[in-house]
């Protein structure tokens, strides 16, 4: 099963140039197989950079990153990513976006239709299958993004602030939906967010990062039982964790 191990990872943009910038400094992390992990930290501390490296979009300047003892090199469909920006292909309808991955691998028309039906339903976009992305709201486009990655069935799911731009209610609903979907397949998830409550609600483990350069400041194990319910957001344990993390980020 897919376990991610990051060892002594350091990343410097523009290494050797006058404007070089060390974004991540000596990161050591393990994301266990089938666990839900969150990364929190202030803006610019290198969360997206770390996630993109896990996706294999570029290599760290120092240290290593392994998936099941294999060094991560280049992109792979086993490591799916939901980007911070909107990445829905505007030239494809909702359902064509959803079945993009399987189509790459030559899925038959019947298989594609089955996958489209399953995942448009799962992300709550039934009835919008043939719409263009421009006809959807921001939150709906994010659902397409998520459904598309899920339909591609990766082992590891990297999510970069997927709910960052949504209103509170929509956000909470999508968090619950995400947990439900995750509960069925138990992929290894690394979920980046600004939102402490979101991190606590979703994750088994929360990595708190400090900025400039990004370092691992603290690791919080969340022992709230699963399945998580919205009522847990108001429990003492939840609020205590939130206060602890909040004070940490404040410094």
């Amino acid at each position: 099963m897919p376990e991610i191990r990051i060892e002594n990872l350091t990343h410097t943009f523009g290494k050797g140039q006058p404007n070089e910038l060390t974004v991540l400094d000596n990161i050591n992390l393990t994301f266990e197989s089938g666990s839900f992990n969150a990364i929190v930290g202030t803006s610019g501390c290198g969360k997206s950079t770390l996630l993109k490296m896990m996706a294999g979009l570029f290599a760290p300047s120092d240290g290593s990153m392994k998936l099941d003892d294999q060094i991560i090199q280049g992109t792979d469909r086993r490591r799916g990513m939901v980007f911070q920006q909107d990445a829905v292909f505007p030239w494809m309808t909702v359902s064509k976006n959803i079945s993009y991955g399987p189509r790459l691998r030559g899925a038959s028309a019947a298989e594609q239709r089955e996958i489209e039906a399953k995942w448009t339903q799962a992300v709550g976009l039934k009835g919008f299958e043939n719409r263009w992305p421009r006809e959807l709201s921001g939150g709906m486009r994010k659902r397409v993004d998520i459904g598309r990655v899920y339909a591609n069935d990766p082992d590891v799911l990297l999510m970069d602030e997927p709910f960052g731009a949504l209103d509170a209610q929509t956000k909470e609903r999508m968090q619950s939906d995400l947990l439900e979907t995750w509960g069925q397949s138990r992929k290894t998830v690394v979920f980046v967010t600004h939102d402490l409550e979101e991190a606590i609600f979703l994750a088994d483990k929360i990595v708190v990062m400090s900025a400039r350069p990004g370092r691992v400041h603290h690791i919080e194990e969340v022992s709230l039982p699963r399945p998580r319910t919205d009522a847990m957001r108001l429990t003492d344990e939840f609020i205590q964790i939130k206060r602890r993390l909040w004070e940490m980020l404040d410094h």
Partner: protein
Amino acid sequence: MNKNTAFNSKRVILGCLSVAAVIAIYALVTSRPDNNPALLPPITDIITSFWTNLTSGSLLTALGASLFRISAGFLIGTTLALVLGCLIGWYRNIEYLFDPLIEAVRPIPPLAYIPLIIIWFGIGEFSRVLIITIACFMVCVVNVIAGMKNVPAVYEDAASTMGATRFQVFRTVAVPAATPFIITGYRVALAAAWTTLVASELLAAQNGLGFLLQEGRRYFLTDQVMMIIMIIGACAFIMDRIFRKIQAHLMQWSETRE
């Protein structure tokens, strides 16, 4: 749907209005007793010229010859531009290879090649099509390259994290993402094709619309000159309309479609 049709018919009515106004003013000016018909022939003369040339067959022959040249030059030029532009825009090494060449050649107006082409290939059909091909290629390739270079990185990243190979990213992401630029390239190529067509026919042709223009000037047939100008305008207009239809169809997904 209803609102759209209403909008369109309003558009057509207003568009026709401006054309009608120009014709009315022209008719008014040419009907004055002090008008010199050799410079500004009355509308009836223009229509007569049209009719004479149509029934004698000379107009259709000329139109056929010109349309053939345009189509051949346009199709060859834009196809080459599409293929080469995609390669240059997508593969770094091919870009390094061709970019200086294209940048050096780009500012040269295609008409400047006419003397050279006549020296090399004579004044035959091949030369005329070649000039139009060059003109179409040059304006189109620049747009295709720009389109390829403007593909948002996040789309490429999304595709490759889903397992797309480099070529699959090219085919399923870069080309569709570049279509707005590519279509613009085709449209400016069409305009360039008309410009160079007439120029090359004015200089060296025994037939075609440009030849009829030249003939009109030589024998002082101002009505014929006016008539041909209008024919060219009408043809270019119709082609552009057809193009917009194709564009609207291909760009259904785009937010900025008309």
